[in-house]
């Protein structure tokens, strides 16, 4: 079946994610089996060879993200997919991708944690880990899809922002959206972004400029005469290790953070969000699989609801503009992670939490009950 935008299929969220990756131009996937993300690897292993791409099942998740970063330096759009324990193993390489400014996409189909937790049950327990899991100061892009169509669409967005900003982008999905089946349009009109390249065959003298107006420098490709040295050590403009000058480190880390932070508003506007305003004193906030019941509950209770798709970078200004003056109830499948960020943006006394640390989202009835308890 087709509609005007592309092929219409009835797919699982994980399968739609793989199709989104292919549509975005992903031609390399390295991964390691882990519930509840494995279907992404399975679909990529079937689909990539059809379009001339490479699939490798690595020996662990550490190696998976390493191979993805290697492929990205070969000039290929690359992705891996995992869940909690694998995402934990990937953290060192999240930091490496940030430091070396390597565009790549990491899909995390969140499951119950900590540790092995509940592999087949959903959670949103990795919201903070996506942002703070590796050591040092850094920023990434993390997007949270709430249905199968968004598993496709936001995977494309992850690639586009990874390429635009030269950062790892995380598709911060959960078992609910990863495993559900819905109608999805495999859009053929997707807009894709490719990283800016330096001229071919020319040595790049300053691959990592420190100046603020060069927040995202063009990315050299190995094998094209750019002759670039890439290191996870603090490096100067030439890419050479610089381990003893704190000023170089400060400038580099500031640029790495600012190139994402300064575009937080633009990222939110471009990826989009749902804001359904109703005549109410209470506003609900939810994202990802959890938002499905919360949107329904908001309608039932007649209250305003905000559903961000961009989890990181957090846009304080947007949250303040939309939610200032409300009694805000954040509903999420953890014990309060996005909640902490919302509290920092608003009067903390006006921000409340309905936290379900995994398993499944609260029912609409349970959310309505909580709204009523708050006086809505």
């Amino acid at each position: 079946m087709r509609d005007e935008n592309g092929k219409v299929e009835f797919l699982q969220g994980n399968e739609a994610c793989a199709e989104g990756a292919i549509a975005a131009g992903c031609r390399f996937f390295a991964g390691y089996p882990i519930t509840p993300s494995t279907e992404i690897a399975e679909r990529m292993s079937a689909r990539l060879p059809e379009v001339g791409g490479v699939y490798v099942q690595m020996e662990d998740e550490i190696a998976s993200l390493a191979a993805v970063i290697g492929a990205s330096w070969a000039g290929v759009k690359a992705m891996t997919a995992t869940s909690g324990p694998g995402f934990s193993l990937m953290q060192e390489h999240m930091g490496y991708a940030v430091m070396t400014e390597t565009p790549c996409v990491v899909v995390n189909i969140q499951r119950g944690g900590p540790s092995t937790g509940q592999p087949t049950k959903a959670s949103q327990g990795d919201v903070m880990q996506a942002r703070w899991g590796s050591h040092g100061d850094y920023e990434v892009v993390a997007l949270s899809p709430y249905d199968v169509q968004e598993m496709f669409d936001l995977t494309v967005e992850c690639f586009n922002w990874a390429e635009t900003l030269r950062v790892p982008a995380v598709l911060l999905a959960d078992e609910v959206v990863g495993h559900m089946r819905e109608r999805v349009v495999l859009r053929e009109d997707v807009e894709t972004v490719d990283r800016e390249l330096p001229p071919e065959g020319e040595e790049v003298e300053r691959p990592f400029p420190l100046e603020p107006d060069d927040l995202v420098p063009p990315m050299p490709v190995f094998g094209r005469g750019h002759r670039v040295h890439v290191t996870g050590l603090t490096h100067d403009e030439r890419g050479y290790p610089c381990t003893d000058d704190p000023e170089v480190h400060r400038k580099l880390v500031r640029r790495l953070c600012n190139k994402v932070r300064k575009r937080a508003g633009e990222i939110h506007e471009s990826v989009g969000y749902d804001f359904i305003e109703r005549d109410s004193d209470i506003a609900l906030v939810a994202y990802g699989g959890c938002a499905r019941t919360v949107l329904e509950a908001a309608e039932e209770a007649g209250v305003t609801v905000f559903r961000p798709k961009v989890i990181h970078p957090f846009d304080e200004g947007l949250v303040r503009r939309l939610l200032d003056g409300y009694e805000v109830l954040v509903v999420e499948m953890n014990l309060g992670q996005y909640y902490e960020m919302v509290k920092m943006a608003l009067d903390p006394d006006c921000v409340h939490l309905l936290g379900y640390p995994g398993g499944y989202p609260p029912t609409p009835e349970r959310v309505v009950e909580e709204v009523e308890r708050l006086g809505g």
Partner: protein
Amino acid sequence: MDVEDVLRMDRWPHILCPGCGNGTILNVLARELAERFENGDLDPDKTVLVSGIGCSSRLPGYFRLDSLHTTHGRPLAFATGLKTANPDLEVIVITGDGDAAAIGGNHLIHAARRNLDVTVICANNYIYGMTGGQVSPTTPEGDVSTTTPYGNPEPPFDLCELVMGAGAPHVERWTTAHPVQLKAAIGRALDREGFSFIDVLSQCPTNYGRRNGFRDAREMVEWLRENTSTRDEEGKIRIGILRDEEREPFHARIRKVLEKAGGDGD
């Protein structure tokens, strides 16, 4: 092409200690590459160096080539992505005994099993030099390090046996006391398709030698020359070509998968 054309001489002198075996490895690799670039056997624009963490892993940054200085133990995993995403690249991995055999041991055996087409040069100096001289998986039993003050109670790995067991088709062992032979070995490794592994017994005078009865780098290379042999000799470490076979490399097998799936573009 001169050796200095291959190196980033603006970074000289390098950070390695006086008499460091890694310097000799850097030197002969640079000379072998310079010759190959000169006679057209190898394209410098397609030659890529990848390393992990440690003293030896600093070498790629001194070459005027594309180079990826990665995380501790993982250079072969990064190299897997580089090489399979672009099989036209000539990928050389520089690693050490701690990098390759401890934290990166899993990647080492799997890269060998897959027969990833890379040349691995392992600077095996029996010690964690960068962090000040801790015991490594190749430190001989009984030797003293900062974390084995009573002598190393563990038996060491034989890295060549390890990678041969995992399927590596081309394996050689040399030492920094054999620069001429080492250069030739690197040349053979570059010629071979598939996983080539060169175990280079090397000296760390600063953090291994001085704690184990060697006064300087000269005494250490002297020991390496006297205690190794290209024949099986009682009491000596076997050096030379330990295996030289042909096996289909990983990227060729991936190519066959693409052909089956119809994505090979032909």
